[in-house]
């Protein structure tokens, strides 16, 4: 595989020169350089609002010594600027080191010398812009014509192809040629004074074939149907209920309420409810939680592409891998970057991720999920005397220091005497993470397992993630609503 011309600047001579500059000055360095290209298509009410394209070349240089980091972002990439930026990063790291309270080293890991390319069928670079626009127009057409009550539609197509080179002081040289695509559909429906909206997205790592999948082709119809359905939904009554969560909500719960507390940087900053909990019971025995961002899982879901949250190697040159977080109710592992792994004296597990080469890698999730067990959804509903079945989410957040979480669901159905009843909208669920993990009363089987994807924000950076699980039932959840 030939690397992009723009990245050939890092020849043996330059790398040798950088290594010499680093010697006796710093303990670790890495350089990330990316050539980014991509397209944004945004249509509203069947009219193009944005048709845009970009090309940027970015470089961030990081240096480390004894607990202190320095980072320098270049605006122009040539040999002189790289050396100049490298010296600045060294100076910044030494300054950090002179002031930081925690002294530690970065444990050396084996150098990785590898080139990765995502195997796409229809390479995004080769697709004519007109074909991309045709798809967006078609979706706008479907959603706006679905009903007279649909007053406003929006379809956004985003793609990007990235050529990224990673170098570090352990001798790693990792080249990645990556394609990413995401499609959104939003629909607003109105009946008299009432406005309701629905939003859906499909995303993946791969080429234009992502647009040919069933989920992508049905996205606008799904949004339109949902927006109309919500016009008839009732406002919920607040109180404490048995709640059945669908895979999307289970995934959100595992990601937001629990996953963030497993990020080792949050743990070290004493913001996590899970500090000192490794080896201890944090959930009922049936609970197993995994984070697995490895490439190759698309086929598990019959998809011709890779999951949106997956990657070959993280932004610190560590290969992605499956990490068991909870095993049979017992907390086993946190998620790490090279710093937190070094400080906790374990091997890094490939969770050092950044949203671009000009941002610093943080500890981030990839594909986080709860493993399925043995309940069928119908059994779960039949077994529930009074409760709420909640599907899909609008948003969610958690106070990681206390574990108090809150999710806003999209669709919720009241359950009475084992039967699914009327639809409710804007139901919010809240509780305390560690209490709730012990109040799970049913975990769905394999057939109910699914996932969803999105962008997760932390420290001003958004990265691609997936989360999922089966349907689960939890007792005594606080349900809030307007009434």
């Amino acid at each position: 595989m030939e690397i992009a011309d723009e990245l050939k600047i890092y020849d043996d001579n330059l790398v040798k020169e950088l290594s010499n500059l680093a010697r006796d000055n710093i303990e670790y360095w890495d350089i990330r350089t990316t050539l980014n290209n991509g397209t944004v298509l945004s249509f509203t009410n069947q009219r193009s609002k944005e048709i845009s394209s970009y090309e940027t070349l970015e470089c961030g240089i990081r240096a480390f010594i004894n607990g202190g980091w320095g980072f320098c972002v270049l605006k122009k990439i040539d040999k002189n600027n790289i050396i100049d930026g490298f010296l600045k990063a060294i100076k910044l790291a030494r300054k950090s080191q002179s002031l930081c309270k925690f002294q530690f080293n970065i444990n050396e890991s084996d150098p990785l010398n590898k080139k990765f390319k995502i195997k796409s069928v229809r390479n995004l670079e080769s697709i004519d812009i007109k074909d991309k626009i045709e798809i967006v127009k078609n979706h706008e057409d479907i959603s706006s014509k679905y009903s007279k009550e649909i007053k406003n539609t929006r379809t956004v197509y985003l793609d990007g192809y990235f050529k990224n080179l990673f170098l570090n002081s352990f001798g790693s040289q990792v080249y990645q040629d990556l394609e990413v695509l995401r499609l959104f559909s939003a629909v607003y429906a109105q009946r008299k004074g009432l406005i309701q909206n629905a939003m859906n997205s499909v995303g993946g790592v791969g080429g234009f074939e992502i647009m040919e999948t069933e989920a992508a082709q049905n996205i606008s119809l799904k949004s339109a149907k949902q927006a109309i359905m919500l016009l008839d939904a009732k406002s919920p009554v607040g109180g404490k209920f048995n709640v059945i969560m669908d895979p999307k909500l289970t995934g959100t719960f595992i990601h937001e309420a629990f996953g963030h507390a497993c990020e080792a940087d949050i743990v070290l900053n004493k913001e996590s409810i899970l500090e000192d909990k490794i080896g201890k019971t944090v959930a009922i025995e049936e609970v197993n939680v995994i984070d697995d961002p490895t490439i190759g899982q698309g086929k598990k879901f019959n998809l011709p592409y890779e999951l949106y949250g997956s990657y070959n190697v993280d932004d610190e040159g560590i290969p992605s891998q499956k990490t068991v977080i909870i095993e049979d109710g017992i907390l086993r592992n946190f998620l790490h970057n090279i710093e937190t792994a070094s400080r906790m004296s374990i091997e890094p597990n490939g969770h050092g991720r950044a949203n671009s080469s000009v941002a610093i890698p943080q500890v981030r999730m990839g594909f986080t999920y709860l493993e399925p067990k043995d309940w069928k959804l119908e059994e779960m509903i039949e077994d529930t005397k009074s409760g709420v079945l909640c599907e899909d989410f609008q948003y969610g957040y958690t106070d990681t220091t206390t574990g108090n979480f809150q999710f806003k669901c999209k669709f919720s159905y009241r359950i009475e005497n084992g039967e699914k009843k009327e639809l409710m909208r804007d139901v919010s669920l809240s509780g305390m993470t560690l209490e709730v993990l012990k109040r799970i009363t049913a975990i769905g089987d394999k057939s109910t397992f699914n996932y969803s994807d999105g962008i997760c924000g932390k420290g001003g950076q958004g990265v691609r993630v997936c989360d999922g699980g089966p349907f689960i039932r939890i007792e005594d959840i606080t349900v809030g609503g307007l009434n």
Partner: protein
Amino acid sequence: MQNKSDVSNLALFALNIAEKLTAKFAEIYFYLSDYLNIDIEENSIKNNEIGSDLGVGIRVINQKGSLGFAYTNRLERKYIEKMVKTAISLMKTGTEDPDFKDLPPKYEVYKTVNGLYDKDIKYLSIEDSILYAEDLINICDKDDMAISQSGNFSSSYNKTFIFNSNGLSIDSKTTISSISSHVIVKDEITNDTSFGFESQIERNLNGINSKNVVKTALKNAKRNLNRKKINSIKAPLILTPKGVISFILRPLASAINAETFQYKRSFLVDRRGEYLGPEFLNIEDNALIEGAVGSATFDGEGVPCKNKRVIDKGKFLKSGLLHNSYTAGKEGVESSGNAARDSYSSLPGIGIKNLILQSGKSSKDEIIQNVKEGILLDYTGDRPNISTGDFSGLILQGNLIRNGEILDALNETMFGINLLDLFRNIEEISKETKVYGPFQAPFVKIADVQIIGSAS
């Protein structure tokens, strides 16, 4: 690109290509940002960062209103030429848009707004920046209950240049500095932990008060310890300035965005000219305040900025919407100078300048002292649904008020209200106000809010 004539030459080069390739309208936007950032984690300096971002975006529009946009951070002429050609080819693929009227004209006069550039920020060194970060760390170290802090200090020097095919040519230089503190405190007796945060953004370095920021964060964190569940009640809600921003001003900023409005996604559609609140409710978006974070002489398209009243004596004004040139053209009015653009990589959207809820007559202490039973709300992570105005959410930082005294922090307590009811139920507004970035807000008392407790 520090040199203005270099930029002008590149802009002319690009505009000429666009014109030759049949773009009827073209606009070129350059943006430079030199920044530094210091991160604090575990109450220790963690990372020092410096960087620079420089790039250019071009927007081209044809006779039928179809728009193409492209950007790059590679400023050699061959990449700029490629970018213009790409934008033109994209323009040719778009749909007609008869609502597009024109790009802004060349303006003869712009109002001067002082205090938007501070050379102390432009020439600030990492060494001097660290002193601000160290203030945060030292105060936290000395506090008995603080167990950790994350935070940062950052500053940037920004330059913008806008040129368009109507002859508009304008540039500005500005500075921004910000500091934030997120502290974790622990009550050693009860073992309970909680967080508190505070931030400050200023155009001028001497406005930054790092000690005050960390002290406020600590105070907020301690007020939120040992949280109690309460029973459901219907009671007055006292919003702190931070609460007013997240709960009234931010949602309002979305609801009066002319684009949201024109697509009928706002709960305020059809309510222009109506009285939304009491006659002592006044809200304006003022771009001309000296030294304020949201102030500017021109917006993201080069249109002169001004002061706009949004809600006047309780009445939502007909002219109370925020426009860029596109939405203004569609409605047949002048742009309000609210085209928002944070970088060369985005098309102009719509955003506030300084959104201000004006102060009232009561003192904040009086407002609280007169509450028999109520809730003090500082922070919720939830947001209202802008198209319906409905809100229901969790109180993340809030306390019970009883007989005029601020008591226990609230645990697992939710509340719900529609924003129209909330405006109608405003009972009192404090004299004291606080500024957070482009927002200014007082304390506000809302009558009769449904609070959902979880004590059983």
